[in-house]
């Protein structure tokens, strides 16, 4: 289904690390989804199920001192950038041990220590990413910034203002648009005069490209190039990664009964699963085998279990010390 072979120059260790990251994000999402479905978790969650390759592929190119700004659909990029799983689970349950003290929840997965900054206002993080990059330039640092946002945020004026300023000042920022085709339930066709979002950036003299966001190797290679370029003071890049969200806008359910998209469409995209297809490819290359997969899964499940235990042992926060 995907052409992975064109990226034959990626070292095997990276190929495996990408798989591991993808698997990790998927298994964590599924564990959260289970709690969401049985109402053990009472927190509005915007799942990234089906679109994890964008985060996993980009995340592997980033250092700790690089920054990302992320949105309410935060789990995948948070984990990909190295955010703590324990603190994330505690945050979802509004426990004090959460990454922001339990007062934010799923839409506020920030981790300043890992340079992860989250905002629940669609597009709100984009100019902040540009500002982080502006500071890096003024401070003559080598760090870069990735702004994650969706196709919905591309309708906001602040994206255009941010593209203009980033290009004007040649800032080390990568605009990474996860185009999952729907802003809540409004399709790109229904909301955009031009559905090729990346072309907006070309107007501002920013190199821009549309890639298959479900092909993790495409994502890895394109973001790698963009990050290297930004690190060498060669300015911003815009990447539009085409992908698809399997679940409803917010919540754990598949929504085959809704009218804004068809069951066939959803199933077609589930066949384009970024994890299963990549796993099949690695099995074929004999980089993976069932034993290795099982080992990885066991290891991740162990971490998941520890995270839930940490969350359960953490108290709820109070207003004390909060201002």
């Amino acid at each position, binding site marked *: 289904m995907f052409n992975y072979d064109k990226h034959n120059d990626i070292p095997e260790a990276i190929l495996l690390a990408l798989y591991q990251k993808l698997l990790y994000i998927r298994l964590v999402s599924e564990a959260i989804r289970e709690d969401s479905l049985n109402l053990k978790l009472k927190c509005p969650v915007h799942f990234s199920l089906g679109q994890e390759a964008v985060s996993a592929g980009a995340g592997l190119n980033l250092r700790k001192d690089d920054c990302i700004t992320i949105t309410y659909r935060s789990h995948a990029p948070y984990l990909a950038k190295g955010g703590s799983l324990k603190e994330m689970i505690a945050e979802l349950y509004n426990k004090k041990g959460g990454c*922001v003290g339990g*007062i934010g929840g799923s839409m506020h997965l920030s981790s300043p220590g890992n340079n992860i900054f989250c905002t629940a206002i669609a597009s*709100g993080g984009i*100019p902040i990413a540009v*500002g*982080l990059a502006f*500071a890096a330039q003024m401070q003559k640092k080598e760090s870069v910034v990735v702004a994650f946002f969706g196709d919905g945020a591309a309708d906001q004026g*602040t994206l255009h203002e941010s593209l203009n*300023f980033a290009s004007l000042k040649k800032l080390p920022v990568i605009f990474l648009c996860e185009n999952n085709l729907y802003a809540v339930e409004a399709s790109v066709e229904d909301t955009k005069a031009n559905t090729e979002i990346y072309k907006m950036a070309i107007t501002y003299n920013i190199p821009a490209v549309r890639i298959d966001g479900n092909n993790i190797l495409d994502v890895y290679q394109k973001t790698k190039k963009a990050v290297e370029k930004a690190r060498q003071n060669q300015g911003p890049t815009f990447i539009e990664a085409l992908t698809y969200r399997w679940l409803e806008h917010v919540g754990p359910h598949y929504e085959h009964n809704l009218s804004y998209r068809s069951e066939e469409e959803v199933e077609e995209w589930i066949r384009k699963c970024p994890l299963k297809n990549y796993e099949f490819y690695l099995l074929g290359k004999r980089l993976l085998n069932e034993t290795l997969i099982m080992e990885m899964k066991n290891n991740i499940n162990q971490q998941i279990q520890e995270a839930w235990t940490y969350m359960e042992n953490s108290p709820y926060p109070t207003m004390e010390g909060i*201002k």
Partner: protein
Amino acid sequence: MKHKSKNNNATRNISYSEAINEAIFQLMEQDSSVFVMGLGVDGSGAVFSTTAKVAREFPERVIGIPLAENSLTGVALGAAVAGMRPIFTHQRMDFLLIAMDQIVNHLAKWEFMMAGKSNAPLTIRAIVGRAVGGGWGQASQHAQSLQVLFSHIPGLNVVMPYSAYDAKGLLISCVRSNHPVFFIEHRSIHKEEGAVPVEMFEVPIGKAKKIKNGKDITLVGLSAMNIEVKKAVEELEKLGVDAEWIDLRSVKPWDKEMIFSSVEKTRRLVIVSTDHKSFGVSAEIICSIAEEMPRTMKSVKRISLPDSPVPAGPAIEKEYYPNFVDVINATVDALGLESPFKREDIFATEKEQIFKDVF
């Protein structure tokens, strides 16, 4: 090593805008993370000359920007998060309304949303426009005094200095603060002169200033309205009224302690502020007094702008803006005395303004 004055308390008379100019220069000289951004900061007018010196001395840190107030507020926030100390400058406060998403949804809540592990030391300078009689009216979209909007939002601090001394000392405190602060200037006091120390100094955010002790009534002035309070205090003295005059200086947080102890003594209060009357600065102060020290007050009065947008035009502006006669009349009324003044009496004496003085 830069030559330092031997006398650290040396002062001289400079204008409010010169005091701002000097504060920014000294801040930038001392700390390379301080930078200035805004429309026109590097232009020929240098925001009423307030950024002229730094634009010459530190051109790489005085950054003119595109007209994109919302995103550039986000840029300033991002830069502040990354360790810079931006001074984002707006020649007219009205344009801050374009930036409300970044100000209210992001800047104000940043430290809260990051559980205190990241902060945003961003100073936003905003200038309130006003015609001072004789024409050059700024009208409804260039003369709003919007401190109340920002004061309502948890996480934002708001100061409005009146004197040149406070302009310098408060600006230094704002930029050194680790939290977002709105530093609101009033165009009609940029040329007011006062004694200002040569060296750097801080005026604490949240503290009012008692300009004159008195026993009969408390007059609280805010920003440019202190010009009117000053004239009123002088006239009242001739009438035998001993007014206590407090410059509020800080709107959020405001100095409860000083105002409470003053009205405990005088039991009469007139607040003279630059915002509209309803839901305004004076409403907050008077409500706090009513709530926390019931049955203390014999009289409270609010002198504010009417609940109407700002009009332009020499005659209508005089009708619209409160003046010192309003302050005198409110005061003598509170004391049960007769006023010798009528509002209209003062207008004949005002001098003509030239355009560059006010715009």
